[in-house]
């Protein structure tokens, strides 16, 4: 690896539109060689688009990206000038080993590989690399954090000098995240790397970055050295106005309430055959929101799927109102237990069906939607859909369009509306409800959830956003490596302690069968 200096990157007034949608508008950015530059903004602000433009993936509508006097017009230019990116979705091949993945990334790979020679080269590279990973392990067997490290290694192996990272820490525990960021920051300090970090985590910005640029709706609203910034100011700039978090009215329940949802020693295997949920027990009471915190990939998805009936339970039990719960249509109706999984379009709708049909999914076999138990009453279905569309402000307000034509936020509204209309929901299991939603939509969803709680409903809220949990939950548990590692109240929450448990390497490590 040569000790060249990274080059100067200048983004000069670039604009990029997709059809009618203006993603970037006259964006200026400068990444000085050997600096750590953070780009922050809300979801949809244009951060990922900016990164892709910098790497030459998109043709620009205006402006140019210049690296050391050379214009970038396509990804090969960017690659040649030492730019590389670590994406949010892994770009690794699961059935291949780490070594093969590293080799695959090279453009100058010879047609015939001398495996011993290549292996020695890789070993030598690993010695100088900041992380160590077993070269022969298959990607499919690695945890998310390790995959992220392989991605970074890949870039270093390719001699990337200007590294762009798109929300890299979303799959890392706080400890892993600090480790990775720390390593990169040290390389920046030594002058061998420039880093562009796209994130919405202000803590990472304050701890590691030299400069920060704030994007909002495709425009740069501020750009400054980090010394001149502070989290409150940055948050304001990101959101657009100084807005204290909306106070959520919660009723105080002083009397101990009955258990609505009980999960007893639940064990579930994930897609890869390994145990994902490991004898988890928890209880949600009526009129309570139980928050499940944790970095994704620690069994939360499987927990939700198990309750929803989307995957099989290996052992353990789920009970609702002190009776065994079976996720059949009758069981769901009887218990009033509805699940709203994450990524609603993929997991909770039939994308090719219309909005009206999707809204009717829980009830189409009951009157008034079914006549004489056998025949569909399409006009009743349509009317009910119109009511949900009205009450939940779904755009566009046409019941007959395929639901896949709607934006993510509107799909979420439709699914929420489906389950909340009719007030039959007594237990709600919700996962990451506000991903991809703007501020107003998030508030809308949160208010509905709290309303259910106040009316006596029990909510199991799984979320990767600790702020969301602190705002809404009555109790918070941390799920890590498939077990419940820690329990706390929002008022007593200590982020470092919680962060430690998220890694599972504090007291809970003895029971952590996956990490050890």
């Amino acid at each position, binding site marked *: 690896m040569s000790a060249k200096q990274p080059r100067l990157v200048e983004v000069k007034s670039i604009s990029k539109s997709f059809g009618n949608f203006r993603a970037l508008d006259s964006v200026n950015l400068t990444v000085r060689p050997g600096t750590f530059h953070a780009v922050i903004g809300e979801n949809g602000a244009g951060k990922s688009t900016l990164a892709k433009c910098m790497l030459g993936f998109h043709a620009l509508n205006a402006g140019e990206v210049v690296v050391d006097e050379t214009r970038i017009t396509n990804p090969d230019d960017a690659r040649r000038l030492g730019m590389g990116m670590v994406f949010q979705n892994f770009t690794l091949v699961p059935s291949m080993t780490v070594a093969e993945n590293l080799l695959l990334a090279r453009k100058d790979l010879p047609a015939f590989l001398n495996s011993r020679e290549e292996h020695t080269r890789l070993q030598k590279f690993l010695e100088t690399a900041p992380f160590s990973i077993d070269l022969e392990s298959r990607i499919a067997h690695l945890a998310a954090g390790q995959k992220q490290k392989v991605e970074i290694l890949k870039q270093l192996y390719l001699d990337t000098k200007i590294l762009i990272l798109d929300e890299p820490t979303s799959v890392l525990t706080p400890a892993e995240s600090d480790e990775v960021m720390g390593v990169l920051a040290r390389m920046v300090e030594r002058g061998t790397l420039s880093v562009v970090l796209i994130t919405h985590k202000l803590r990472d910005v304050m701890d590691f970055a030299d400069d920060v640029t704030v994007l909002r709706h495709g425009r740069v609203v501020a750009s400054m050295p980090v010394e001149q910034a502070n989290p409150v100011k940055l948050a304001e700039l990101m959101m657009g106005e100084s807005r204290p978090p909306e106070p959520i009215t919660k009723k105080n329940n002083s009397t101990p309430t009955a258990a609505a949802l009980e999960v007893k020693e639940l064990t579930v295997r994930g897609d890869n055959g390994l145990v994902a949920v490991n004898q988890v027990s928890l209880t949600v009471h009526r009129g309570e929101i139980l928050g499940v915190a944790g970095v994704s990939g620690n069994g939360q998805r499987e927990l939700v799927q198990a309750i929803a*009936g*989307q995957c099989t339970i290996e052992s353990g039990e789920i009970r609702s109102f002190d009776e065994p719960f079976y996720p059949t*249509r009758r069981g769901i109706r009887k218990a009033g237990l509805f699940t709203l999984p994450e990524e609603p379009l993929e997991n*909770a709708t*039939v994308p090719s069906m219309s909005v009206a049909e999707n809204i009717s999914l829980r009830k189409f076999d009951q009157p008034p939607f079914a006549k004489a138990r056998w*025949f*569909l009453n399409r006009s009743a279905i349509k009317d009910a859909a119109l009511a949900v569309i009205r009450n939940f402000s779904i755009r*566009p307000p*046409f019941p007959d369009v395929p639901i896949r*034509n709607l934006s993510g936020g509107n799909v979420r509204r439709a699914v929420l509306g489906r389950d909340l209309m009719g007030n039959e929901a007594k237990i709600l299991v919700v996962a990451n409800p506000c991903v991809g939603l703007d501020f107003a939509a998030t508030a809308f969803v949160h208010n509905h959830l709290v309303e259910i709680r106040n009316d006596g409903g029990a909510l199991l809220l799984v979320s990767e956003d600790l702020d969301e949990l602190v705002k809404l939950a009555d109790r918070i548990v941390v799920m890590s490596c498939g077990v419940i590692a820690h329990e706390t109240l929002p008022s007593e929450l200590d982020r470092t302690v919680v962060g430690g448990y998220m890694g599972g390497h504090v007291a809970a490590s003895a029971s952590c069968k996956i990490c050890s």
Partner: protein
Amino acid sequence: MKRHSMIPSPRSIESVAIPAIAFLLAMALFGGFCVFWGAPFWGVFSSIYRAGFGSWYSWQNSLLRAAPLMLCGLCTALPARAGIITVGNEGAFVMGGLAAAAAGLATQSAPAWVSLSSMAVAGIIAGGLWIALAAGLQHYRGVNAVISSLLMNYIAIAFMLQLVEGPMRDPGSLNFPATYPISPSHQLGRLFNSRVHMGLVFGVVASLLVWFLLERTVWGMKVKVVGGNSRTASLVGLPLGAIILTASFIGGGCAGLAGMVEVAAVHGRASHAIAAGYGYAGILVAFLSRQSPLRIVIVSLILGAVIASGGSLQRDLDLPDASIAVFEGIVFLLILASETLYGRFEFFRDTRDAF
């Protein structure tokens, strides 16, 4: 935004126009192919047309072929709507025919309607179980239904041949092994003094029934949810296994019924001739109809005419019988290729699409 319900939407026009254009293109290519072999371009198609639709005689030939195509098409289409793709139509057809023959021979002494009913029931059950088995193996064991059903086709044919040449053999059927014949009084009747048998009615009724089930009943909605997104189906508590098995059973039952018709109306007995390839043609029909029952009726008619005209090319133009298979192949390939054109043309775009 209201649309007058009588005017077809751009989408439905598109779904007729694109396959129609592909068909015409296939005709052009096939015509060119025949010209290369010395046959006149238009002569080829007029020969096909005459043999398919030219006279009442030809119409009957076409309708006779269309009947099993409809039923076999449903065999692929209905499970496909539930998310299971199989190609086991031929196997279900053969098993249905075999079971029907056995039932028919066992009820020779009963009144005709009893015998025919039991043949039909036997055929439906045999075919239905056959396809349900493949579907069940995929759902409960993860065994790819396409491959398992294809294997089961060969197994069914071998089984049938073994029985027809062995235990069920009629000693009188010397060079052409077959079962004992079913007496003419107990065979399936004809319609209106024509050569077209009741099988056509079965085909049309079955298609209408399946359409009705899918579009107008609660069960049909369940099938479409399961086929549209099985995760969502589980989420709303639908019993995936039961729905998939039922849909597959009904689909397989249709093919089994077609097998029964082949035995009870066409041959009057079971022999290797009942493995006539209607099953594979049924797959074609289902995909060309985009798994829609009403379309299956129309496509079956057209394909039936094409198949019926197979011999005409040999008679009129001295082209080998297999020319028709080449035509079928070209049509199939082009209509499949045309699937890629949906949604590409501005002309057909619905203004409510894409927000």
